[in-house]
């Protein structure tokens, strides 16, 4: 058993518990984006930052990947943490401003504007879908490809993967909805959710502007999530 202090409260947890789990156990909220119960921690979004240690040695770490240690002193909402978190949110907003999940997180944490160039990416590379596909669906149909600026998520050679069972799990967990409806390109489809519903949105010219977080979908009136 390990005893650590979070925001002055003592918590005793099992070995191997992460700081995030310990904090949640105490009921202390830490925002997360790329963390999901049942999937291995990945530490991609840095939204779950907390401050550990004292004085000049204090540092910022991602709580979802940091293992609890005996005597660890954690602060989950010090001024430094709040500043770091807001910065992360600003950056996320800059890269993917159309994501409802990110918008909600930003507004909840009082981020009203962001100072960076707007990118309108459709993926923030949080890796949720990749882990979902591999760890829960045991398919490994999608994965990371390339690196650096050209890193992306998708199937090998961008063709429909034989390992994919069209379960739609990747779309379900995606905070940015990149892998939303691919009905218009059946070769690349990773989901077949609506294939036999003949959703009207396919005929609408502004298909590309529609996001699947519109739940229920304004066009085809099927719940997206």
């Amino acid at each position: 058993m390990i005893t650590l202090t979070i925001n002055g409260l003592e918590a005793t947890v099992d070995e191997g518990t992460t700081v995030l789990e310990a904090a949640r156990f105490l009921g202390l909220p830490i925002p997360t984006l790329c963390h999901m119960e049942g999937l291995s921690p990945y530490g991609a979004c840095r939204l779950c930052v907390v401050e550990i240690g004292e004085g000049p040695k204090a540092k910022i770490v991602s709580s979802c990947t940091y293992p609890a240690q005996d005597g660890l002193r954690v602060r989950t909402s010090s001024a430094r943490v709040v500043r770091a978190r807001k910065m992360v949110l600003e950056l996320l907003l800059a890269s993917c401003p159309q994501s409802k999940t990110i918008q909600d997180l930003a507004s909840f944490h009082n981020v009203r504007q962001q100072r960076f160039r707007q990118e309108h990416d459709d993926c923030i590379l949080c890796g949720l879908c990749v882990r979902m596909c591999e760890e829960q669906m045991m398919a490994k149909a999608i994965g990371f490809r390339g690196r650096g600026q050209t890193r992306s998520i998708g199937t090998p050679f961008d063709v429909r993967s034989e390992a994919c069972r069209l379960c739609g799990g990747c779309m379900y967990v995606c905070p940015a909805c990149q892998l939303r409806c691919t009905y218009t390109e059946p070769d690349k489809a990773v989901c077949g959710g609506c294939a036999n519903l003949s959703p009207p949105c396919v005929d609408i010219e502004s298909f590309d502007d529609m996001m699947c977080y519109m739940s229920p979908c304004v066009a085809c009136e099927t719940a997206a999530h």
Partner: protein
Amino acid sequence: MDRGEVLSILERHDGNRSGLIPILEDIQARYNHLPAEALTVLAEETDRSLTDIYGVATFYKSFSLKPRGKHLCSVCTGTACHVRGAPIITEEFERRLETNAGDTTPDKEFTLETVNCLGACALGPIVVVDGHYFSDVNSAGVKRIIKKTRAGLDKVQVKADRRIFPVSVNCSRCNHSLMDPEHPVDEAPSIRVTASFGRKHGWMRLSSLYGSHNLECEYEIPADTVVHVFCPHCHAELKGASDCPDCGAPMISMIVRGGGIVQVCTRRGCKGHMLDLNGGGF
């Protein structure tokens, strides 16, 4: 692409137990790029997921999924080379080769690529062509590099590389000279022997430069074939004393004039060879 060929590459890597990257390197060495079908075969045969393989293949710059040209020309655009003018060099290459960075010229001669830092920043801007480094390149130098490459970089390099030197050899049984000054290979007298493999039987001329693997043969020798080599004078097989340390095929041995023996692996494509100047056991 031939499935059997990929399988034989996999076999050499002992199926599952070997790492993925060496296998990909061998496939790339064979085809000059990674063909999609080869990766599929690799995934099936080794129980790896194609997604992982594809991830690795696209992660490393040295792997290419697109067919590459005969010469690979990489311009460093890392930070140091960038500030020393790499963008101008890249443009100059693009203009002269009439292709874009990342593409291959239509005649399949050159593939132009940009890479990020080759670890020789002080010598920048750096250009690497087929493993030969060019430092402090300026736009005037681009033309020279292309010309040199077209003329054949290896030829130019043989004289400059001190590890490569000519040897003269005799048959280890009849002691006749095997040297053939009439037919130079690598611009040096070649070593003439008789080779036989399968049903084929004909002359073969090896480069006498120790360290060079160039050879000419009456018949095309398929990769990986083990060749039997005979002396053209006494017709005895030039059998070596040991097997190749790299691939296990038998080696042939010849007497080096001035003392010692040289052993060469008989497997086509294997680069195993040994030079023993003091020994000369027989």
